[in-house]
């Protein structure tokens, strides 16, 4: 059973490439969302195992979305992604209820699998 993934990013091209990449590397991408509100709704509806969550979103940022997801019943495992390095987000990264962070350049099926166990 391949783990199911929800991809949240405001760039269409990134969602498409990430979907193709993860599909090719052992994940089942069950949906995507372009903003924070869409992400919370899609997660409730699709109940994915993993949410790949971009930090910079047009409405609320990834940290807020992660807290909302964590507050729901049976929360998914969340991996934050960004085109920046983790250190740029300072202390907020340390306290976020997520299981890991991936810079977009490091994204691969194996790297994601290593974080979500």
């Amino acid at each position: 059973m391949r783990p199911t993934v929800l991809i949240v990013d405001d760039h269409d091209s990134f969602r498409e490439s990430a979907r193709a990449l993860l599909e090719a590397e052992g994940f089942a991408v069950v949906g995507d969302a372009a903003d924070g509100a869409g992400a919370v709704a899609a997660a409730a509806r699709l109940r994915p195992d993993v949410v790949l969550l971009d930090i910079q979103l047009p409405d609320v940022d990834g940290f807020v979305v992660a807290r909302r997801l964590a507050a729901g019943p049976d929360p998914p495992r969340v991996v934050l992604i960004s085109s920046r390095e983790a250190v740029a987000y300072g202390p907020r990264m340390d306290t976020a209820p997520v299981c890991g962070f991936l810079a977009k350049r490091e994204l691969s099926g194996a790297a994601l699998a290593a974080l979500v166990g």
Partner: protein
Amino acid sequence: MAAEWRLYGWADPGGWAPDLLTGWAMIGCGLAGWARRPGSRSGGLLAAAGFAWFVPDFGAAGVGPLSWLAAHALYLHRGPLVQLVLTYPQGRVRGRVEGATVVAGYAAAVVAPGWGSQAGTVALAACLVTVAAIRYVRAAGAERRMRRSALQATVLFAAGAAAVALLRFAVPGPAAETVTLLAYEVMLCALAAGLLAGLLRWPWDRAEVADLVVELGETRSGALRDELARALGDPSLQVGYWLPESAMFVDAAGRPLAVPGLASGRSATVVERDGQPLAILIHDPAVLGDPGLVEAVASAARLGAANARLQAEVRARLAEIAASRRRILAAADEERGRLEHRLRDGAQWRLGELAQALRLARESATGPGTAGRIARAELQLTRTREDLGRLARGLHPRQLSERGLAAALAALAQDFPLHLDLAVPAAETSPTVAACAYFICCEALANVAKHASASRVQISVATKASGIIVEVTDDGAGGADPEGRGIRGLSDRVETLGGTLTVASAPGQGTRLTAVIPDSTGPL
């Protein structure tokens, strides 16, 4: 003396003594003034009035023509007196109105009714005072001070003559005549003494300027102008200093000084040393009419100018350097703009094409393995395009030139990983100032993201008529190094535009970076 004897005989000292004294006072004071101030004709005129004073006394001589002359010359002395008081202290008639008044004064002395009539005397006195007052009001500078003396003398003389005339009109009879004559004689003596004293003190300007020579040894260049303006009585005086390298005159602040043409109504006096121009005085033509005064001012200016010229030269150089720094900055910004343009239209555009091609390839790929590998390449490409876009924006933000500072900062905030409060009014600023403000924010945000461990950042921009104030505040660790390379570069940029950059960053208190950028950067 002979004349007095002819008129009164020795038996009447009450009659001849005051008369004799008055004539001698005028002659004596006049000759003394003439001897001490040969450049002025006032002494001569006073002496002439004194001699004329005695002419009527020959009326009893019994010699035909002399008696006739004496009979008509009772007021002869008033001719030179009118000329004297009007033209005092130089004694030279200038202008048509003054000339006509002097002629009228002489004419009234020999032609009846003239000074002989009481009404005529009052009218002439009023006329004299009016002319002197007008000349005084219209004069400037040193000329004005001379005219003031002339006005004072004229008023004294005219008031005396008019008072005598009015008294004689009001109280006819020989008793009144004796008293008024005596009063008139006293007034003439006082006038003669006063005019001589004035002549001996004259010219006051040179004395005042000579004092200046002592003072100016240590004064600053701006003060030289003020001191000279005060000494010459010309508040509009401008002082320029000659810069040999650029072959022009500059003022104390180092700004080029335009030398007025002939038609401007201003005069320019060049102060030279060893045949080289040293300074220039631009002044009211009236204030340096006297060649002696010009020489005194020139020596004062020579002394002060050596010091002042050095300062003006330094300021001119500084202004030049500031202008050249602004030119360099503008050229660098322009160059960055061209680079950004080339990146955008060249590399970025082609990478966009490549991304399109990869997407088509992935969509038509047969196996998931191939699609995944193409997707990995696409992600790398996306990342590269983002990097390149950031680089281009850092070089020269297109938003800034196309949509202004507020829009460019908003775009910057979108790309910033932390929470960023923006308070930026959508106001017009000059491109140079806007670019400066933008780069300050960029550098400050980069520093915050790298070092500060902050959770909130605030950018506020206040636009004033004189320029803008940019403030970037964070709640991070503080302890930023104001001498670090990034901040040093920002300081240079801000100072080039004549502004200031301050950094307050105590450890544990966050960092506040404040830039004040004036929007009057002057010509490039």
